[in-house]
């Protein structure tokens, strides 16, 4: 009888301990998967800004037979065909900042899912030279006139420091909580900066670009319509319908919304890590699952809406 009670107690402890230890596995796995998907969508959006401008320039030329293609305009200024509208160095630095968030989510996942954290590589090899030197990149961009670059330096340093600690210490259970509490707020700062960039710079580019395309297509149709056949009119009107749909998506600030839902999920993860009492933990875990679920749904919807803004 004593043996049975002892075994039951041992099993209970093991199960309870397992539950406690694995508290983060499911949400952190979901967080990591959604982070990877979101960053993939946003990275494609960032990377395509210059090609989008070149395509818009060529679409203008196509709509107006009086315009010729040129690499420099009549005033001698480079056209979007040959000159990057946005500095490639600034775009790359923002992609690298997103990589820091991605590495954070991946290492959090590794930490929650492994039984042998001691097997982890060192922090420096895990981060790679590119990310380790990211602060230098932002410092030089800041000196070179990128007005928002300076704001990225502090949070990136902190996140890199947190990721480093995940490797240098070997105590998984406490580390998952500590990593979320230390890295999460800085990840939020980076994501907020990305969102501000989206709202202040890229949404203006995308919204005016989509409205430009729609207006150009409509004005060109109205000028040409009397000389078009029925089939040509149908084809041109289908193009206008697509442009109208893109303009609607652009106005909804879709990329910014995606970053917002990522920030919400990160906040829920932070709240979950900060919870102490049993009831508090249950509530925060429930909120975390809700935030993660909403984020997963948004990724599917928003990535479809973003695709026309990427050329």
């Amino acid at each position, binding site marked *: 009888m004593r043996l049975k009670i002892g075994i039951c107690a041992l099993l209970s402890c093991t199960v309870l301990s397992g539950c406690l230890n694995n508290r983060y596995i499911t949400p952190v796995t979901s967080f990591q998967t959604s982070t990877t998907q979101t960053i993939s969508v946003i990275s494609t959006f960032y990377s395509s800004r210059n090609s989008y401008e070149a395509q818009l320039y060529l679409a203008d030329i196509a709509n107006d037979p009086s315009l010729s293609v040129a690499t420099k305009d009549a005033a001698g200024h480079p056209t979007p065909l040959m000159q990057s509208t946005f*500095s490639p160095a600034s775009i790359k630095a923002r992609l690298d900042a997103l990589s820091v968030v991605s590495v954070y989510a991946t290492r959090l996942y590794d930490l929650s899912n492994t039984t042998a954290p001691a097997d982890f590589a060192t922090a420096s090899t895990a981060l790679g030279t590119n990310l380790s030197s990211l602060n230098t990149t932002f410092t030089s961009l800041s000196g070179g*006139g990128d007005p928002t670059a300076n704001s990225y330096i502090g949070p990136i340093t902190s996140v890199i420091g947190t990721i480093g600690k995940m490797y240098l210490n070997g105590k998984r259970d406490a580390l998952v909580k500590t990593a979320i509490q230390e890295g999460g707020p800085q990840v939020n700062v980076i994501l907020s900066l990305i969102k501000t960039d989206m709202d202040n710079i890229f949404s*203006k580019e995308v919204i005016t670009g989509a409205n430009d395309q729609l207006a150009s297509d409509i004005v060109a149709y109205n000028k040409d319509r009397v000389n078009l056949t029925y089939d040509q009119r149908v084809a041109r009107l289908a193009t206008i319908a697509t442009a109208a749909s893109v303009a609607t998506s652009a106005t909804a600030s879709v990329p910014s919304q995606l970053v917002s839902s990522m920030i919400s999920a990160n906040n829920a993860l932070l709240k979950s890590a900060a919870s102490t009492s049993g009831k508090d933990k249950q509530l925060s875990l429930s909120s975390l699952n809700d935030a993660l679920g909403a984020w997963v749904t948004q990724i599917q919807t928003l990535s479809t809406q973003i695709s026309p803004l990427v050329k």
Partner: protein
Amino acid sequence: MATAPIDTVTLTAIINQCFSYATDARFSLADQTTFLIEGKRLRGQLLNLLSAQFDNTTAPFAAATASLTAVNATLSQSATALANTAQTLNSIATLVSNLDKLLAIATSFV
């Protein structure tokens, strides 16, 4: 020297309004085309202005800011823009010119 960006929120609103009037049948086809051309010019300037900083104590900065406010006030009232289309288009052309002068004295770009 105090540096500041130009108000690109207002400029974006003006550009979008130009494109909206370019597809508004209440304006003549010729005026619609002019709104489209001016909208494109302003958008080209916007892409440079988004990352530019200026000495906000200079006359070109003050002139561009005043133009932005005035044009936005006119464009946001469609009845005013319709009743005074020629004057509205002239004020947009002045804004384009003021922004060109401003871009020439930018202190830094991305």
